[in-house]
């Protein structure tokens, strides 16, 4: 039986590299396993806890704060590992992705599999396009998420580890 899969692109599509989550999500239209849901979410990340209710597996794609290697693609198994407290995603709101995951874990509301792909950003100016290093990593990031989606639809994230 196929597992219920959700892929969510996170971030503000009008703020430089914060758009990378939405852009990767858009690139995945038509390339996900049959029955998988594809969604974008900007702003309030607490609503993610509702978004992933009822799904066996979820992939979140977000921009990570600059750490010296823009365009680098990070893969995190959030259902298995606690996110490092100093992990910085790009959100100015009181609750970002890391807080939503920590709260859901505390409340027992995490999906069985939750994998986060985070692309390290360079600039987050309002109205700016993607930076060159992030734009250059788009295709590879999209392919990795597509492959992860196929894997998660068939097996759990542990199969990747």
């Amino acid at each position, binding site marked *: 039986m196929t597992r219920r899969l959700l892929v969510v692109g996170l971030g503000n599509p009008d703020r430089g590299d914060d758009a990378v989550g939405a852009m990767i999500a858009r690139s995945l239209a038509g390339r996900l396993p049959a029955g998988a849901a594809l969604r974008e979410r*900007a*702003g*309030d990340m*607490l*609503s993610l*806890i*509702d978004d992933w209710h009822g799904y066996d597996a979820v992939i979140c794609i977000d921009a990570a704060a600059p750490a010296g290697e823009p365009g680098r693609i990070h893969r995190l198994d959030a259902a298995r590992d606690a996110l490092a407290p100093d992990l910085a995603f790009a959100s*100015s*709101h*009181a*609750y970002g992705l890391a*807080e939503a995951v*920590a*709260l859901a874990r*505390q*409340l*027992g*509301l995490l999906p069985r599999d939750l994998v986060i792909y985070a692309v390290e950003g360079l600039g987050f100016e309002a109205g700016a396009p993607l930076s060159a290093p992030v734009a250059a990593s788009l295709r590879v990031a999209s392919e990795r998420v597509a492959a992860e989606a196929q894997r998660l639809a068939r097996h759990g994230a542990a199969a990747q580890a």
Partner: protein
Amino acid sequence: MATRKTIRVDYLARVEGEGALDLHIADGKVTEARLNIFEPPRFFEGFLPGRSYTELPDIVARICGICPIAYQMGAVHAVENAFGVTVGGQLRALRRLIYCGEWIESHALHVVMLHAPDFLGYPDAIRMAAEHGEVVKNGLFLKKTGNEILRILGGREIHPVNVRAGGFYHAPTRADLAPLAEMLKRSRDIAVDVVRWTAGFPFPDFTQDYEFVALRHPDEYPFNEGRLVSSRGLDIDIAEYENEFEERHVAHSTALHSVLKKRGAYLVGPLARYALNFDRLPASIQALAREAGLGPVCADPFRSITVRGIELVYACEEALRIIADYDPPSGGSVAVEPRAGTGYGCTEAPRGICWHRYDFEADGVIRAARIVPPTSQNQPSIEADLKGVAQALVDAPDDVIRGRCEQAIRNYDPCISCSTHFLKLRVHRA
């Protein structure tokens, strides 16, 4: 020997946006409390001129992801005021319903997720959830209910797109609203529990002599309409706002400070609305407030958490009433014909009055815009509270003062992003 010290918070958590706080203490007296707002100005009033009134609701919705309806409602009421349009009946009721949604999602987020941990001694709602998991889950359900109202009436949860001058681009059917009623019934019961839960919190002994300012309507708890009144006799049409209030630049904040020209600091938001409109609440909610230890006026800013709970109950009940009475209109909006003129809008955002004025050309193009958000209006009162709260604890260790001051700021649910328009605390002792 004279002693001085400074306590500083460089970044305040559990608020929307970024700011800091500086406290100066000399010889056992708090000499200064400054709320430093350093978010960059956003220039909405600068780029609205030249745009059409038809674009206005969608542009101002972008001022805030938490309270976009406040900005949209202020804007469309100002447009209609300028063009001589009146929106009544079911369309007016739908505007109250979408505002209920915004109050529910905003108040639920603040009361349960941001403010309650202060009173129970947790650093955040995540740690609080370990022992109060059901309350947190219920808070998330309340918030979801508010978001759902925005999604169904506004087209989407964040920065809704269905609001226009004259009404809505699309009016919902009865079937669209039916699932909301089921969520609202459960949310109303949760909100009553939230009132009782917060009423049992430990509150510091602290009240202030505020001048409350809020809208007052002849027969409704206010959302979109009413006269602007205060607890010290102000009673004006919203068009007269600039005669009585002014905004001042202060060096330590990118947000303007609003004051009453004649009397200085004033308070907007839940405490003000409640004190000036207690008699407009249904008897059952008045009784709940009394059961929670509130009189018809509450001047304790820490108890604002319970007053927000009361407003959550009201918003759920009002939304249920509107849905039960809903008779879909034949169209989503009434006709709007632009003309040259000036229009005013003033509505009750979750954090207090949000005032708008626009000048329009004959073709409806905006010539000038002015928007006064609630958090900038409350800044002088926040600083006065900080001084009072810190003075009562002046001999306590700095981290105790710092914690209480952060809690005092969160009493206001400040939306710093809107106010620039927020927080880091520095206590200066020497």
